[in-house]
């Protein structure tokens, strides 16, 4: 993984000192809250319902063990002993004191972590395929390009006051998109052209929020040496022409919709044609320098037959279930990509205690080549585990509450923090996730792959638009109701869910999801996942079941 050099470290320490002075000026009254707000936001510090929340960037979701231990340290020393991993693969702490934030950032800087641009109207954390470097289906490791983008987008002088936030995702496996590329302001798929050269397909204008839109391709193939100049062209068009009069219409997706993708492409290409490309060109040497940081670990292929592993699978059903759901094939035979679930039944999705963080750091050192990844689905990946270590690894997960075998299943729910923490929320998300998880756990193997995503407001941090079942919290005269969408997907078959009908009251959500799942179970044909069935039979049967007359004691849905 990427290791800072003297330039990176010097920059980060200067940045911490700069922020420390900004906090000092705020506490001394030299800066008004209005003036300080964008400064703290550029360091990921939000004022929430009960306290400050600090959002720490985990660039493209890659963490080293000592970095994970530092997050544990922050959780213990400055917070209440736990953190929360988000859909942008960041780590949030919810009970932070403003005057301690410079010290937190100084602590983080000792392990090359920061909170730069985890908020504000600028580039946010660039995300990537959590299986990068381990998946057999990738063209090449996308992370060197993510790191190049991270550096270029850090305190960019021209693009730090954009109309709105800006998110970039990179994947090298378009046929198995694990980075939700199409719901980003810019999405990049690594691909080969006819000559076999590697470059990028460039997509623009995706996003969720109150106007969900899937990104469209503006360029089929961009040679990789021109990555930064092309990004600059897109950003310059957006910075000049993106709307600034209405917060909800200021993302680049609205500009793309307004112009149409053809005119957007013309504008970007015209700007790009005029840019001095040499100034930002990535030479082969430069790309090689970055790629060296992400050299694949030296994993020896292991024979497929492994008597001890087979015996463990046969003797322990729980272990076999975990292997089935939480491990995936590694590109090196005999190794596995392991996902540790942060979705224990009936608990808040994405939360992680300091003790769990420390354990994950140990496990990464013992079994995964010192590498940890975070996923946009709020789980943790150990990307390089030898199959013969799986039993020993699994045995250490159970006591720490990390052995939940539910990856991709109905209890592997994404949820935003919602009204329990967030000042923007309309309704709570976490209790809904907890109730559904508890209720559905016993049947999850039978239900199979079904992604439920819950947002507590229209801003869609819980990605509800791209849930197979999406749940959106809305406020109706002070009461929490939930609007349900069906058929969304964030994967290679990306789609936006459709609203099925009137929102349901909080107490009815579990019952409503039950009814939807019953339709699927009764209608599915062999091998069909929930979305397959939904796409085949359409919304009508689901709608009929959900809104069928019910016993008088049950409350009616809101119209």
């Amino acid at each position, binding site marked *: 993984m990427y290791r800072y050099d003297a330039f990176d470290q010097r920059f980060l320490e200067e940045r911490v000192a700069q922020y420390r002075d900004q906090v000092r000026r705020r506490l001394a009254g030299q800066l008004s809250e209005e003036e300080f707000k964008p400064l703290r936001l550029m360091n990921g510090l939000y004022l929430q319902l009960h306290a400050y929340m600090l959002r720490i960037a985990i660039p493209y979701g890659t963490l080293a063990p000592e970095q994970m231990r530092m997050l544990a340290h922050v959780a213990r020393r400055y917070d209440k002993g736990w953190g929360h991993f988000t859909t942008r693969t960041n780590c949030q702490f919810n009970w932070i004191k403003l005057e301690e934030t410079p010290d937190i950032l100084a602590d983080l800087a000792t392990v090359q972590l920061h909170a730069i641009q985890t908020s504000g109207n600028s580039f946010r954390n660039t995300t990537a395929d959590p299986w990068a470097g381990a998946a057999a289906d990738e063209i090449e490791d996308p992370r060197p390009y993510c790191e190049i983008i991270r550096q270029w987008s850090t305190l960019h002088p021209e693009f730090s006051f954009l109309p709105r936030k800006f998110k970039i995702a990179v994947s090298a496996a378009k046929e198995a998109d694990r980075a939700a590329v199409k719901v980003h302001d810019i999405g990049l798929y690594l691909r080969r052209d006819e000559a076999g050269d590697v470059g990028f397909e460039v997509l623009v204008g995706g996003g969720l929020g109150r106007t969900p839109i899937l990104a469209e391709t503006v360029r089929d193939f961009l040679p990789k040496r021109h990555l930064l100049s092309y990004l600059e062209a897109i950003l310059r068009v957006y910075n*000049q022409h993106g709307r600034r009069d209405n917060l909800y219409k200021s993302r680049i997706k609205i500009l793309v919709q307004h112009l149409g993708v053809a005119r957007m492409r013309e504008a970007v290409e015209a700007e790009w044609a005029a840019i001095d490309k040499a100034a930002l060109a990535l030479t082969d040497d430069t790309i090689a320098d970055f790629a060296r940081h992400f050299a694949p670990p030296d994993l020896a292929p292991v024979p497929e037959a492994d008597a001890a592993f087979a015996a463990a699978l046969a003797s322990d059903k729980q272990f076999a279930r975990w292997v089935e759901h939480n491990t995936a094939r590694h590109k090196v035979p005999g190794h596995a990509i392991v996902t540790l679930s942060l979705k224990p039944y009936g608990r808040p999705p994405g939360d992680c205690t300091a003790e769990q963080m420390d354990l994950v750091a140990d496990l990464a050192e013992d079994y995964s080549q010192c590498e940890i990844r975070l996923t946009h689905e709020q789980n943790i990946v150990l990307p390089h585990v030898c199959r013969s270590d799986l039993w020993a690894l699994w045995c250490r997960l159970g006591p720490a509450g990390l052995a939940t075998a539910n990856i991709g299943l109905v209890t592997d729910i994404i949820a935003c923090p919602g009204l329990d923490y967030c000042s923007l929320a309309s309704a709570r998300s976490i209790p809904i996730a907890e109730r559904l998880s508890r209720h559905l756990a016993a049947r999850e193997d039978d239900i199979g792959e079904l992604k439920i995503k819950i947002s507590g407001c229209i801003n869609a941090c819980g990605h509800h638009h791209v849930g197979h079942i999406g749940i959106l919290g809305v406020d109706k005269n002070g009461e929490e109701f939930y609007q349900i969408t069906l058929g969304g997907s964030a994967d290679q078959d990306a789609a936006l869910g459709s609203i099925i009908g009137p929102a349901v009251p909080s107490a009815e959500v579990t019952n409503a999801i039950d009814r939807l799942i019953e339709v699927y179970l009764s209608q599915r044909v062999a091998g069909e996942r929930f979305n397959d069935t939904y796409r085949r039979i359409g919304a009508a049967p689901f709608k009929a079941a959900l809104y069928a007359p019910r016993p008088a004691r049950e409350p009616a849905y809101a119209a």
Partner: protein
Amino acid sequence: MLLEAGAFCADRWRHLGDDEAVPEDETVTVSYARWTRERAALTRRNAPLGLRLPNDVAPLVLGEDVHRFAVIVLDFPRFTDGRAYSQARLLRGRLGYRGSLRAAGNVLRDQLLFMRRCGFDSFEVGERAVAENWLAAFDELDVFFQPGEDRMPWVLRQRRAVA
């Protein structure tokens, strides 16, 4: 008050309203609207001329005329409105403008370095800038990850030079 060349100084330019007569021998700035209306008359003057460019005008429309101005004033109606950063880069990098480039409007201490990197060399600031020593803001960072119009070295190229 202005911040220029590492010091605070008074503004020697007069900023003409659109209905004020244009003096023959005084350094004045005019609005972009006036420039487009009275271009012929304004170019006949001998005294230095400045232009106030709103942030929704693409600077490329100025073309070669850009070299007629001794100062171009770009506007930050709110400090969160960052359009003038792109205007500045286009004026410097694309049109080769070498006159003074001034940031006006809601100019705050913590944006000064961004502005300098985009090509601004003059900043309209309030009295508080002296008491709060805004000059120090330019020295808070000296590691940059992008090429800028201030021609400071940037990391991607510095690394290869070291290697």
